[in-house]
């Protein structure tokens, strides 16, 4: 970021008098704003798609009143959330009640920083990329827990406790299921992981088809990640038929909106991570976007990445509208007795594979057979 600031100062003579740290700070703010706007737009569009997909699947129509074909529904929703009265229950812990949504939102929003949207489109290519995502998303738990407790509502408290137990448990299989991709790329950086899946093998260069273990790893990750982001069938923290609405039952207005956004943000983070780690990120078969001019390459790769990520989101919604909900003990059993052992076995398998075959995947081996 500082390097960028220096180059900016050099390029624009007007900025010469401004101290470097101010330029850097400004740049940071601008980048953050861009990501925020992007995230909000995505989440708005995501909520619209969610409702449209739900409508189709449930043999009904979905929103179609605001704007052409209901396209502006998410704007209306957003405006409604902002304009709604912000209620705080009388006996709530006011400070924590106000604070909690921000934790949740920051947790999911901060993860966008390391998402590799394109060849060069990444806010900060941290070399601990995946680990960073795991770390910051854990902030969401705090927000949810505090929201549940500070609402002074027993249903909310139960929802908060469920959420915390669930997210903490499922962080292990999520991490374990992502490690195969890290092992193959030899780096924690998401951009490196995406690059490791390029090459001329096309779709078979993706980690998904690297070897059987990575194939299963993808599904394990997808399942565990759905649970970590509280999607149906793992939406116990907000199970509307049991806990009414769970931890956010007392929230209204923009505070509820922040929870809503963080949920969608989490969903998108899961989609991007699975895209980047298993589905080749912005890579398309038999074409290297890096060879295009900077702007076109980035635009092209951004489109590819978003298309893949959106497909993942759609699949998550599809699952969401198909399955019923697990019970709490079944959820925990699934985490500890199924997902955790399976991901460990899988990790062992991938490690052995990489050790035995010198890091080569099945497609690469087949390709090498043919020269």
């Amino acid at each position, binding site marked *: 970021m500082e390097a960028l600031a220096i180059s900016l100062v050099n390029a624009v003579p007007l900025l010469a008098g401004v101290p470097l740290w101010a330029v850097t700070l400004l740049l940071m703010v601008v980048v953050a704003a861009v990501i925020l706007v992007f995230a909000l737009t995505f989440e708005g569009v995501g909520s619209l798609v969610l409702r449209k*997909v739900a409508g*189709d*699947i*449930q*043999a009904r*129509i979905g929103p*179609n009143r605001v704007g052409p074909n209901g396209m502006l529904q998410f704007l209306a929703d957003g405006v409604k959330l902002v304009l709604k009265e912000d209620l705080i229950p009388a006996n709530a812990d006011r400070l924590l009640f106000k604070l909690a949504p921000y934790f949740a939102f920051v947790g999911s929003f901060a993860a966008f920083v390391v998402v590799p949207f394109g060849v060069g489109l990444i806010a900060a290519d941290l070399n601990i990329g995946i680990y960073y995502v795991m770390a910051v998303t854990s902030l969401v738990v705090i927000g949810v827990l505090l929201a549940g407790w500070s609402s002074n509502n027993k249903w909310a408290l139960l929802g908060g406790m469920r959420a915390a137990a669930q997210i903490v448990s499922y962080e292990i299989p999520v991490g374990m299921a992502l490690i195969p991709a890290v092992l193959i790329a030899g780096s924690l950086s998401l951009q490196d992981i995406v690059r490791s899946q390029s090459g001329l093998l096309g779709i078979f260069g993706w980690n998904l088809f690297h070897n059987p273990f990575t194939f299963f790893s993808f599904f394990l990750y997808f399942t565990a990640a759905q649970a970590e982001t509280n999607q149906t069938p793992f939406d116990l923290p907000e199970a509307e038929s049991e806990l009414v609405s769970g931890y956010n039952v007392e929230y209204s207005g923009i505070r509820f909106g922040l929870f809503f956004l963080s949920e969608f943000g989490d969903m998108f983070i899961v989609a991007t991570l699975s895209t980047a780690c298993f589905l080749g990120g912005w890579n398309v078969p038999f074409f290297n976007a890096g060879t295009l001019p900077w702007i076109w390459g980035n635009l092209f790769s951004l489109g590819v990445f978003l298309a893949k990520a959106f497909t993942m989101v759609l699949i998550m919604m599809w699952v969401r509208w*198909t*399955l019923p909900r697990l019970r709490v003990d079944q959820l925990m059993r699934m985490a500890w007795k*199924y997902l955790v052992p399976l991901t460990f076995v899988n990790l062992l398998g991938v490690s052995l594979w990489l050790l035995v075959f010198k890091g080569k995947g099945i497609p690469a081996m087949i390709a090498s057979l043919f020269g």
Partner: protein
Amino acid sequence: MGLKAYMNDIVEAVVTTAKGMRITARYGVDPREEVTLQYPEERWEIPEGYRGFLHNDIKTCTACTMCVKTCPVDCISLESVRGADKRMVLASYDINIGRCMYCGLCVEVCPPKSLKHTSGYEMASVTRGELILHFIAEDAAEIKARVARQVAEAAAKAEAQAAAKAAEVPSSGTAEVAKAAEAAKAGAQAGPKAAEVPPSGTAEAAGAQASAKTAEVPLSGTKAPDVSSESAKAPVVEPKAAKEGENKE
């Protein structure tokens, strides 16, 4: 738990999930299955015999009060007076549509089949008083007074005729007839029906108000296609009646 059962569990979970997702996907991509009726624009075909709002054709109504007696929730109220030709004349016929439960019992018992269900089912009002449908625009008191007058006139006429017959004297003065009529009127006022008529000044004032308000209301006997529109045109809501309706609730 053996390894086999463990694996079976996983396989079963995956298979049943895939089965369900196949079905939801089929609905997701098949727009024919979307059954939503976009209500204000699209409407479903209302079958014959639909039990919508009640409508009484007051021209054929005989004021027999069968509907009032049959209604389990007392939503119909009716006032009538005996007319000059010995038939009952409706003074008011109100249906509290907010209380009606559309059971159709009143329609079944109606002897002249004047009470019918329409196909109307939409109505909105700000006050509950507006939910009372008044099928007779005129004020009840006014009608009663008028009928009483007619009865009296008829009586007077009959009397005059009788008197004319009795008196062989050729009619020399219409004044006498008028006198006789006046006397009959005075007698009628003392009668039970006329006694119900409130002091003429206030009654007339109220009647004038009501008629001024509802002068252009064509509460015809023709079947209204939609009662809501009809009632929108004809909110014969007297403040008094509205209040009464609210109080009843």
